[in-house]
């Protein structure tokens, strides 16, 4: 991925900024200009909404044949997370052994390194998810 393409999405990748439809209150991440439920009525009515970062594992896998950018992490865990705001996000799970992962497990977004443009290029950061160990965390 090129630098401008990544840079355009820093708000989403660093802070978890999504949108909420003013008409139906549904939350979307990443942001959409148009709510798929309210369609044209929603245009101009999609307001910024920061996600809490908390959610539960909906489904998961351990990747042995990796995306080339993540070769050094192999095997790594991918999951789809159902966020508190009823929106789903794909991300890696960290800080947990694969054998301990289960559906419904509570996780929280955490800022991690995702890759780099080239060995000398800028580093890309973004969200991964880690288990919530203490519920009051």
């Amino acid at each position, binding site marked *: 991925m090129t630098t401008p393409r990544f840079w355009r999405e820093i708000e989403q990748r660093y802070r978890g900024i999504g949108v909420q439809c003013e008409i139906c209150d549904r939350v979307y991440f*990443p942001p959409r200009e148009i709510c798929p439920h309210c369609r044209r009525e929603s245009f101009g009515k999609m307001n910024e909404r920061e996600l809490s970062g908390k959610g539960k594992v909906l489904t998961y*896998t351990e*990747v042995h044949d990796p995306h080339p950018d993540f070769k050094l992490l192999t095997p790594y865990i991918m999951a789809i997370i159902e966020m508190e705001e009823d929106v789903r*996000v*794909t991300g890696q799970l960290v800080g947990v052994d*694969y054998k301990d992962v289960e559906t419904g497990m509570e996780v929280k977004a955490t800022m991690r390194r*995702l890759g780099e443009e080239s060995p000398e290029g800028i580093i890309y950061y973004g*969200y991964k998810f880690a288990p919530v160990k203490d519920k009051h965390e």
Partner: protein
Amino acid sequence: MRDVAIIGIGETQIGELWDKSLRELGIEAGLKAIRDAGVSGEEVDMLYVGNMSAGKLINQEHVAPMIADYAGLDDIPAVRIESGGASGGMALAEGYISVASGFDDIVVVGGAEKMTDVNDEEAKKILSSTADQEWETVCGATFDSLHAMMARYHMNKYGTTKDQFAEVIVKNHSNASNNPNAQYPRAIPKNFVMNAPMVSDPLGMFDCAPLSDGGAAVVLCPAEYVDNYNGDPVKILGVGHGADHIALHDRREIGGMKATRIAAEKAFKNSNISSKDIDFAEVHDNYSISEIVAIEDLGFFKKGEGGPATEEGRTALNSEISINTSGGLKAKGQPVGAVGINQAIEAAIQLRGDAGDRQVEDARYGLTHNVGGTGASAVVHILERWSE
């Protein structure tokens, strides 16, 4: 709308074809189909080519005019259709629409993909680019891992097992053993599948279709003109398209494909038949889980019963419904943009009664099902044996 017939079919061997280029694959398939139909080049009104990613795989865009040119048909309009893994099926639907509407009479629909000019790692990365590049793959998701998460979800929700996934693969390899064009024309034992190296848990190496080179083509004409040509016709009875969100995580249902259900509903409605009438189907088994999800969403089995039905042999050749008699994407091979055409060719071979040892007895209705990405697009065709 006019009724439409397939009057010619042609496909290349599928496999790692080091000595053949994309244009050669397209031409070989196209010429076979034109010869089979008994049409001449100047009669062809239009060429559609299904192709997923020539731009990335061989650094060549604009492939449809290139293939037409080297087939000696440089004055025939040619357009490429892209819809990820459903490119071939979508191209066939375009061909069907242009003949049915009366706009064109003779249309050639081809599909071709050349996947082995880049290394395996690069080819898999390109295949993954049919998922959402900014919100799935950038985080580390691969095409394999997205299907693995579908599989995990299906296992948790419906109790589907890894054993049942393996049964899909064993069946499809067994069917391919009677298909001379298949990339892997041989049966494999279940323990090979079960003990294969892990790709993305729970999917092992044998749960995944290969990356293949191949070309396929069919010739379409209005049903009322079939007597003007030599080709042994089959009828395209109905077509349906379906769609859904691009990213797997945005779909409300992870263990099913809405795009498939919509496409099937429309195709059955257009054909005036139901899933119970279908004798055999070529479904998009790019992974073992994909076939299980497909046979449920196409209405052959209830949701959650796809795994047990496969295990009980109800999808084997000449059982309740024969699924992937060609060997499917897994064993016949996966030249991505050609897949939808390969499926139509298998349907035509079956309906002509030319399938030899893999013939479905008394086959009257066949269905083909082609999926793009992890389910953002799907297209279903229903074909019928020709009757005067």
